[in-house]
């Protein structure tokens, strides 16, 4: 697990993101079902269940690079610190930032966990404390059945064809992954001022 700390957000909002890459993942459909059920549960039990899976589950094959993910997380954290979230939580805001359209359902369907997800990026955003690191790690372990991989292996998993389709990048040369990466990072960063 890695953490990104955005020093300039300290004192304004949640400044830290814990990120783990799991590949392969065995229980993707169970995770999806759990998220759906947790949102409907009431009372204390519901609170506990929602806390147990208080993560962004991102389809890792749609992330092109560490900077791509970092940019989406940063824009979500920024929106939260300004009380300008467009979705219900800072975690769903990451998925929203990743998708090039303004359709939230579509963003979650495309970039979130689906029954067929093989690799997942699990992200938790919160205030940065040493104690929350191990706690978060434990919660992730309980929620995800999969093999933990270093973030550096992200690029090997990328599904470039699908990314190009979502961003409507038809003209780009098939092997030119670097410029696709550049484009999607910029697209994520400017999401809030997209037309």
């Amino acid at each position: 697990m890695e953490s990104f700390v955005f020093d300039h957000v300290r004192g304004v909002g949640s400044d830290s993101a814990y990120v783990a890459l799991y590949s392969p993942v065995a229980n993707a459909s169970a995770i999806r079902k759990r998220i759906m059920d947790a949102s409907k549960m009431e009372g204390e039990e519901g609170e506990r269940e929602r806390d147990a899976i208080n993560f962004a589950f991102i389809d890792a094959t749609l992330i092109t690079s560490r900077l791509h993910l970092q940019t989406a997380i940063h824009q979500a954290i920024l929106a939260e610190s300004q009380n300008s979230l467009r979705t219900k939580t800072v975690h769903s805001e990451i998925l929203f930032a990743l998708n090039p359209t303004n359709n939230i359902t579509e963003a979650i369907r495309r970039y979130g966990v689906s029954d067929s997800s093989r690799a997942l990026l699990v992200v938790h955003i919160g205030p940065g404390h040493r104690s929350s690191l191990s706690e978060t790690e434990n919660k992730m372990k309980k929620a995800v059945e999969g093999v933990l991989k270093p973030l550096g292996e992200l690029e090997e998993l990328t599904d470039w064809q699908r990314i190009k389709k979502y961003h409507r990048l038809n003209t780009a040369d098939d092997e030119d992954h670097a410029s696709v990466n550049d484009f999607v990072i910029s697209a994520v960063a400017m999401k809030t001022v997209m037309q």
Partner: protein
Amino acid sequence: MSASQNLIDSALFISQGAEAASIFLLPVIFSPDNDIDSIGQKVYKAQLTSNSSPILLKHRFQKQYRHPTLDASLTRSRIAGEARTLLRCLRAGVNVPGIRMVDATNGVLGIQWIEGESVRKLLPGEAEGEDNEEVDLLQEYGISIDEIMNLVGTEIAKMHKADVIHGDLTTSNMMIRPIKSSQAELILIDFGLAFQSTLTEDKAVDLYVLERAFLSTHPDSEPMFASVLAAYEQRMGNDWAAIKSRLDDVRLRGRKRSMVG
């Protein structure tokens, strides 16, 4: 206090006004086309997290002379405009800095930090008494003046093909970035005055502005600009004829169209 303001407070101040000025605080060049708006921003070098690459922050700070509501909406639309233009260029494969963060509420645009040198500093005619500096730099970057002119023409043509008009083409707004084991690349920067247009007129004026900038910053640069146009022509193909004849018109009358009629 907002997150973006904290980021600015911890950043390294670079300049007020033009984007291309280096850390040594060159005197900022005001080309005739820099309107008040492009001066009304400050530029910083910053980092979002401790192990990420540096970014360049452009802060359109609040203008006290404007009504706050108007100020907020103008700032927002200008940041949005610049970001959209950059994305349009990236989609078309034009070499421009990537976008790294946008906070339109606070007037902050973060773009990729380009390691390199502006074309202005690589060409002869900067300041007197440092004649050899450009030659050294050219050698260090492994590029000749001719190659630079070729890159300039090609990159502008790519941009115009995407119907993006830069609005402030000068040799300061082009950076040369060295690449290991390959020829250096040219990156167009500062899209603060850019807009989208399909009009031949706008493209011709864009070239005319660059021509004037060339002649006023680099003595005896007519042959240089001619090779820029040659590369531009090659890349533009069939569209060149119309732009060329319009450019000749613009040269006769200046960049502003006649207000008569």
